[in-house]
C-alpha cells in the first residue's frame, strides 16, 4: 500500500473507476469499463442494464469473485475504507459472508442439494464465528423465522428440495444475512421466481435492509423492481454506466437516449392493447468489439443532433447534469431535455 493516508471516504461503499477485462483468444473482453458509484449504509443502488451490459460482473468484482487468473480487475472498490481490489484470497475470504454477502439469481441451484438447510445455515455462521453448535443452530432458527419460514425449528431439518423456489430464496437471504453483513449484493434475486413471489421477496429484502442497516446493490433488468426498491439507479450499457442518479431523476427526468429507450420498452397498463412495444433498434454490442466513441451510438436515433461524427469517434464523459445526476452523452443539455420530452410524450405519460 503506497497510499498511507487515504482521503476520507464520503460513502460506505465507493466503487471507483472499476474495470474488468477478460483476455480471450478472440480478443480482450471489456466486461466492465470505468464504473463509478457510491452508496451508504441503509441505501439501495440498482444497477440496471440488459444482458451482457456488465452488471453481474460488476457485482462479482465487488465481492472479489472475479478470478484473478482469467481477468484483469483495475480501479477501486472501497468497502468501509478497505479496498477489495488487490486483496489477497485470504483477506477476501474473511470479508465474504461477514462484511459482504450475496444473493444469487437461481435459488433452485444455490443451495447444496446434499445438506439439510440447517447444516448449511450453521456452517455459514461457523465460517466466521467461533460459536457452539447450539448457538449456531439458534441463530439459524432465528434467521429462518425472520425471513418468514413457518415453524423454523422443524424446517431446519429439511433438505433444499423440500422447499419451493420462493422459500429457497428466503433461505438464501437468511444465509446471506446470518452474519449481519453491511453490504448485500442481490444479483437478480427475483428473476427466477414467480411474479407473485417476486414482490414478497423484494419486500423481505427491503425490510431486513432496514433492520440491519445494510447497503444493498441490486442487480436487475426489471424496472418495476427498481422503482419500488432503489434509492439510486445506475444504468449500464456496453460495460459502462451511461446514466446514474437518484431514482426520480432516472424515471422522470432521464436524459440519456438509452435510458429513454429502456423506459419506452416497458409495457404499461395505460397503453392501448394493440400498440406494440417500442423496442430499441439494433442489437447490444459485443463486449469484444465495443463501438468507438459512445457505446450506444450505433443504436441511437438522436445522434444527428450532435455535430459531426463526435458520437462515433469520441467517448463521452459521465458528467453531472443536475445535482447527483450523471449522464454520458454528447448532446447538449437542451437537446437532451427536448429529446426526453419527445420520448416520454409518446408514452402518453403524465409528468411527475
Amino acid at each position, binding site marked *: 500500500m503506497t497510499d498511507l493516508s487515504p482521503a476520507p471516504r464520503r460513502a460506505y461503499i465507493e466503487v471507483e473507476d472499476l474495470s474488468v477485462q477478460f483476455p480471450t483468444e478472440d480478443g480482450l473482453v471489456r466486461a466492465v469499463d470505468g464504473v463509478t458509484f457510491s452508496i451508504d449504509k441503509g441505501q439501495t443502488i440498482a444497477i440496471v442494464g440488459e444482458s451482457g451490459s456488465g452488471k453481474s460482473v460488476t457485482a462479482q468484482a465487488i465481492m472479489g469473485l472475479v478470478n484473478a487468473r482469467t481477468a484483469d480487475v483495475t480501479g477501486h472498490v472501497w468497502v468501509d475504507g478497505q479496498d477489495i481490489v488487490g486483496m489477497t484470497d485470504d483477506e477476501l475470504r474473511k470479508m465474504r*459472508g461477514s462484511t459482504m454477502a450475496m444473493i444469487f*439469481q437461481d435459488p433452485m441451484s444455490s443451495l447444496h442439494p446434499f445438506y*439439510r438447510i440447517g447444516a448449511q445455515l450453521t*456452517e455459514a455462521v461457523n465460517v466466521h464465528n467461533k460459536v457452539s453448535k447450539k448457538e449456531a443452530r439458534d441463530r439459524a432458527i432465528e434467521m429462518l423465522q425472520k425471513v418468514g419460514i413457518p415453524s423454523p425449528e422443524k424446517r431446519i431439518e429439511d433438505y433444499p428440495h423440500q422447499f419451493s423456489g420462493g422459500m429457497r430464496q428466503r433461505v438464501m437471504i437468511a444465509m446471506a444475512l446470518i452474519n449481519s453483513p453491511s453490504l448485500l449484493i442481490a444479483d437478480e434475486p427475483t428473476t427466477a421466481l414467480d411474479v407473485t413471489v417476486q414482490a414478497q421477496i423484494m419486500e423481505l429484502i427491503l425490510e431486513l435492509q432496514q433492520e440491519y442497516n445494510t447497503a444493498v446493490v441490486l442487480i436487475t433488468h426489471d424496472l418495476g423492481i427498481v422503482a419500488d426498491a432503489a434509492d439510486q439507479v445506475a444504468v449500464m450499457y456496453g460495460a459502462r454506466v451511461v446514466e446514474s442518479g437518484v431514482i426520480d431523476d432516472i424515471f422522470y427526468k432521464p436524459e440519456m437516449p438509452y435510458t429513454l429507450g429502456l423506459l419506452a420498452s416497458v409495457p404499461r397498463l395505460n397503453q392501448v392493447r394493440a400498440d406494440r412495444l417500442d423496442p430499441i433498434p439494433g442489437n447490444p454490442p459485443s463486449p469484444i468489439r465495443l463501438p468507438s466513441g459512445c457505446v450506444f451510438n450505433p443504436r441511437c436515433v438522436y445522434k444527428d443532433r450532435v455535430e459531426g461524427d463526435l458520437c462515433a469517434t469520441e467517448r463521452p464523459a459521465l458528467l453531472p447534469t443536475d445535482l447527483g445526476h450523471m449522464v454520458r452523452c454528447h448532446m447538449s443539455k437542451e437537446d437532451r431535455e427536448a429529446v426526453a420530452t419527445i420520448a416520454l410524450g409518446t408514452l402518453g405519460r403524465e409528468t411527475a
Partner: protein
Amino acid sequence: MSTSVAPSALPVVPDEDEEITGRSLRQIVWSRLRRDKTAMVCLVILILLYLIAIFAPFITSMLGVDPYSFDGESISDSGGGPIGAWGGISSEHPLGVEWGTGRDILAQLLYGLRISLLIATTATILTTFLGTTLGIISGYAGGKTDAIIGRTMDLILAFPFLLIILALSGVLTQRLTQLGVPDGNPSRILYLIIVLSIFGWPYLARIVRGQVLSVREREFVEAAVAMGAGRPRILFKEILPNLWAPILVYATLTLPTYIGTEAALSFLGIGVLPPDTSFGGMLGNSVSYFSVVPSYLFIPGTVLVILVVTFNLVGDAVRDALDPRAGRV
C-alpha cells in the same frame, strides 16, 4: 417395454399418520437398492464370500482340511493323480485334491479367495483414493497442476500395462524386500496391489476431473465461496459429495476387474507362490491336467466367475440406484 410398469415405480401410499420427513440421498439410494432383488441376493453372496475369506482358517479347521498338508494317500503312487472320481472327491476332501501333492482343493480355494479378495479390495481402495484425490485437485486447481497431473495420466495410460508388470515384477519385489517387506508372498502381494493401483487410478481421476469441472461452476459452489468458505471446505464438502455416485460405481466395477487381473497375473506366474494359492495359480496348475481331471479347472473357475459376476451385478445395481433414469429406456 414402455407398457410394463415395474412394481417399484408404483406410487407409495404413505400411512396417514406418517409424517413426511426428508430423506438424504444416501437413504434414497439405499431404499432403491433394497428393492432390487438381484442386487440384494448378490450383496448377500458377496458378504458371505468376504466372511468366508476372513474366517477361512476357522472354516478349514472345522472341516478338517488344510491347504498346506500333503496327503499322499489320496493320490496314486504311479502318476500322482488323485484317486477316485472327479479329482478325488471324498468325504475327506469335499472338492478333491491337487495332482501330485494331494493337497485339499476346498482349503486351497478358501485361502485363494482370501488372497484374491485382499489384493483386489486393497488395490481398489488405493485406486479410488488416488484417483479421487488427484482428480479433484486436477479439476479444481486447473492451470499447471492440471497439466502436470493430466500428462502423468496420459503417460501411465499409454504404458503397455501387462508388459511392464511382467518385466518389473522381479526387480520391484526384490526392492520391496529390501525396504523391509517380508520376502516371498507378502512382497509379491504388495507388488500386485501397488502395480494395479498405479495403473488403475488415471481412469477414475479422469472421470472425477470431468465431474469437478462441471460441479465447480454450479451455483451452490459459488454461493459457498461468496459466503467465505475456504478451499478445503469447497473441495471436500461442496464438491466431493457430488462425486460419490461416479466414484462408487467405478469402485464397485473396478473390484471384479482387479480380481480377474490378479487371476490372470497369477496364471502368468507373477502372483503368489506355492504353497500359497490364488485363483489364478490354481487355474494355472490345473491346465496341465485338464483332460484327465476337468473338475480341478472347473471348481476354481466357477468360483471366480461367481465372484466377478456378483460384483458386476452389484456395481450395475448401485449405478441404477444412483441414477434411476439410466436404466429405463
